[in-house]
């Protein structure tokens, strides 16, 4: 068993997955899965020779064994209680090991026409939106891990907001990983459709209360229609043994507004690929991120903002705090296509190294093919500001307290731009726990 490489393991899993499908083998979705698996077979596990994986070595996957997770139901709110936000009215959805769990989900009053259901159910219903968009926004041909996820599409969250609906309370989705028998392969697949003039906040929250090894490979596809507003937050608190690969692809229609916050503290190995594409004019996109890693953790953020249309604005700001032997990678690409005039694109990456052996590799990229644009990027890497530290010390504040204070201040840029107060409090608590 141990001698199998990652692709062989994937094949074994795929065969087992097919065996367990029973009668569902004949559904159209399965031929789509099979097609994806064919694509997957043409691809190889990326190596560091691949420019996109230059600093992130995934070859260790060839020495690991993973097995697709099975649905289990016997969980109670006790398991997820500590991941809920205090003082927040919100709809809650919980997925356990990638499977929608009705007992751990409760929806507040949602406007008529809005659908918040499991992807499995949406597939059974042959939902027209699912048919139209699933697998169409994320590329399943060239990306190894996205193809892998697509080959196993089964469950996840499907949110459909029709035109003109405003959902006031955020939707909190907990991806709870409970991997008692180790080495689960968890592959949730989500599809969010925000209709014209609609507005919603969605929180994707990846958690685990065990300290075990498993592999989350999630893909989220998002479509924001004209004038739609989506506030998306992803909070990654996986087990410190886990492998987390998260992909998000967003298509933005005219005048839509998409904002994303990624807060990442968990997983031994995490890779985040966030891509947004303007398919109509006048869109606005924000990608913010904060990662705090320690020990042997590796965090990698790859973002692509594709200005395929004129008159769009994008803002990107990623901040990192590195301790221990941790390694951070940031690769932010802004693409301004020909004719995408009047583009404004701003990108920044700041990293603080708190230990001798932490490493940061930053690669902000601009590719610009139009002339009437304003684009800039900046990157800084360093330690905490010595002058600020000295100032605090002269006021009688000790080294540790001063460090904590400066870190809070450093992180606050990203945290204060999150609109949900309860979530900000939750994050402040994480930072306090980590650095005080």
């Amino acid at each position, binding site marked *: 068993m141990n001698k199998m490489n990652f692709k062989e393991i994937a094949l074994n899993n795929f065969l087992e997955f097919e065996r367990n499908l029973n009668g569902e083998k004949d559904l159209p979705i399965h031929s789509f899965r099979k097609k994806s698996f064919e694509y997957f077979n043409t691809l190889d596990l990326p190596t560091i020779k691949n*420019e996109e994986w230059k*600093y992130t070595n995934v070859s260790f996957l060839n020495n690991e064994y993973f097995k697709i997770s099975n649905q289990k139901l016997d969980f109670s709110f006790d398991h997820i209680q500590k991941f809920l936000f205090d003082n927040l009215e919100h709809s809650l959805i919980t997925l356990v090991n990638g499977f929608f769990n009705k007992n751990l989900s409760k929806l507040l009053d949602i406007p008529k026409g809005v659908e918040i259901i499991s992807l499995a159910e949406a597939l059974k219903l042959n939902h027209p939106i699912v048919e139209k968009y699933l697998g169409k926004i994320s590329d399943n041909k060239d990306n190894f891990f996205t193809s892998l996820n697509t080959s196993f599409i089964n469950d996840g969250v499907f949110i459909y907001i029709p035109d003109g609906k405003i959902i006031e309370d955020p939707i909190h989705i907990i991806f709870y990983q409970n991997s008692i028998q180790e080495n689960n392969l968890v592959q949730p697949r989500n599809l969010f459709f925000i209709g014209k003039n609609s507005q919603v906040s969605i929180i994707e929250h990846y958690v685990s209360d065990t300290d075990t090894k498993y592999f989350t490979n999630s893909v989220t596809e998002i479509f924001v229609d004209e004038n739609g507003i989506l506030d998306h937050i992803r909070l990654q608190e996986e087990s410190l043994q886990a492998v987390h690969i998260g992909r998000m692809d967003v298509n933005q229609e005219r005048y839509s507004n998409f904002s994303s916050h990624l807060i990442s503290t968990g997983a031994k190995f995490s890779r985040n690929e966030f891509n947004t594409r303007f398919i109509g004019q006048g869109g606005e996109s924000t990608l913010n991120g904060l990662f705090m890693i320690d020990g042997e953790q590796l965090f990698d953020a790859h973002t692509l903002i594709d200005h395929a249309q004129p008159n769009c604005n994008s803002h990107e700001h990623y901040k990192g705090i590195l301790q221990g032997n941790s390694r951070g990678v940031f690769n932010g690409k802004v693409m301004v296509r*020909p*004719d995408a*005039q009047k583009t404004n694109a701003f990108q920044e990456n700041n*990293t603080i*190294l*708190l*230990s*001798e*052996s*932490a*490493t*940061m*590799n*930053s*690669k*902000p*990229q*601009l*590719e*610009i*093919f*139009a*002339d*009437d*644009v*304003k*684009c*800039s*990027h*900046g*990157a*800084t*890497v*360093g*330690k905490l500001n010595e002058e600020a530290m000295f100032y605090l010390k002269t006021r009688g504040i000790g080294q540790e307290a001063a460090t904590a204070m400066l870190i809070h201040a450093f992180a606050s840029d990203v945290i204060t731009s999150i609109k949900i107060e309860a979530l900000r409090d939750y994050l402040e608590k994480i930072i306090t726990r980590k650095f005080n």
Partner: protein
Amino acid sequence: MSVTETQKIEELANREYKYGFVTEVEEDKLPKGLNEDIIRQLSEKKGEPDWMLEWRLKAYRHWLTMTEPHWPNVKYDPIDYQDISYYSAPKKKPKYNSLDEIDPAIRETYNKLGIPLEEQMMLAGVAVDAVFDSVSVATTFKDKLKELGIIFCSMSEAIKEHPDLIKKYLGSVVPYTDNFFAALNSAVFSDGSFVYVPKGVRCPMELSTYFRINASETGQFERTLIVADEGAYVSYLEGCTAPIRDENQLHAAVVELIALDNATIKYSTVQNWYPGDKEGKGGIYNFVTKRGLCKGVNSKISWTQVETGSAITWKYPSCILQGDNSIGEFYSVAVTNNYQQADTGTKMIHIGKNTKSTIVSKGISAGRSNNSYRGLVKIGKKAENARNFSQCDSLLIGDKCGAHTFPYLEINNPTAQVEHEATTSKIGEDQIFYLNQRGISKEDAVNLIVNGYVKEVLAELPMEFAVEAQKLLSISLEGSVG
């Protein structure tokens, strides 16, 4: 874009290469192709000692095991390395005592370029080691330099007369195993310059080599080696123009700089080789490996480049900051027009403690060109208190061109302070409007703005060069209003 703007851009695109002419000089040429025999012949023609031939052959054998890299952001037709003649020299090779003895055709070439040798000698006290094709034909001011113990000669001469220095330093910064083009250069380099400045000597004048590619279909493989011994200072200028050609010409030079304790080397380049016609046909492939090693403490290496020519420019003048407190600098202006492509930038490798580096890169793209900045700043584990500041700006003129930035920051030490900034924009309409208001024509306004934009870099050039660079810029950008 308004009609007049489009016209102006077209006008700019239609501008022919101003320095296009071929000087007819009899040439001594090797047949096309590359194999061990060719290298033996080449070495023999140059009268090289055996160790040099061995070195070349080793490089050639290693080159055979390598494949041509294709990662840069440039596109070109495959190069047939067997279709190039690897040696060409003016046939008559007498030793000159005065400039009057030089072949009048060659002197005429310089005159057409507006940089006559005599004038230069008089003007700024520049010692010119003029490389006409691959062999040095004129060397000036040698005696004066000799008094100070400075060696400034062609590489072939240095191999014969200073074998110890060459053996010690050649390939020590760019070994022949370094990359595909460096290996090729090591195997077939025709000539180049060698500079050695002894301990504590400050070179009293700017050293300069004007070389041009002249023989049709010969690749130029220059090899430059500059060594500044402890406490020495030297400023070296490199500048070139080349006549119109139809076939693409490969230029794969290698430049190595070595600065020992407290030494400073300043290396300036103005590159204006034939960029190809407005259809993107022809033009020089400029694939150069340039690297400086700050070997000693407190040493400093500074690269300044103004790149306006070549169909493809692909080079990264780099600094290895090995000595404690050493300093690396990179100042660059890269202008691309028509179908030109540039993928250029720098690498700053911080190894020693308290090392500092500054990168200022200004890209200007017009027409259908593509201009990329690619740079690496690497802070090693032991490089305590390293400091880097990078600024890479791009200016776009017209909507058919592209500007790209690929900076890599690799930080392995928490005491480092690294900053990177980049902006991309076009010339602001408000800026042009403001200048128009004050009675300055649109064209002058663009020139003014561009000059202001690149000022930071031009200020780093030695006086004589700054003038030429400014001229080149306004020639390349006249009439381009965007």
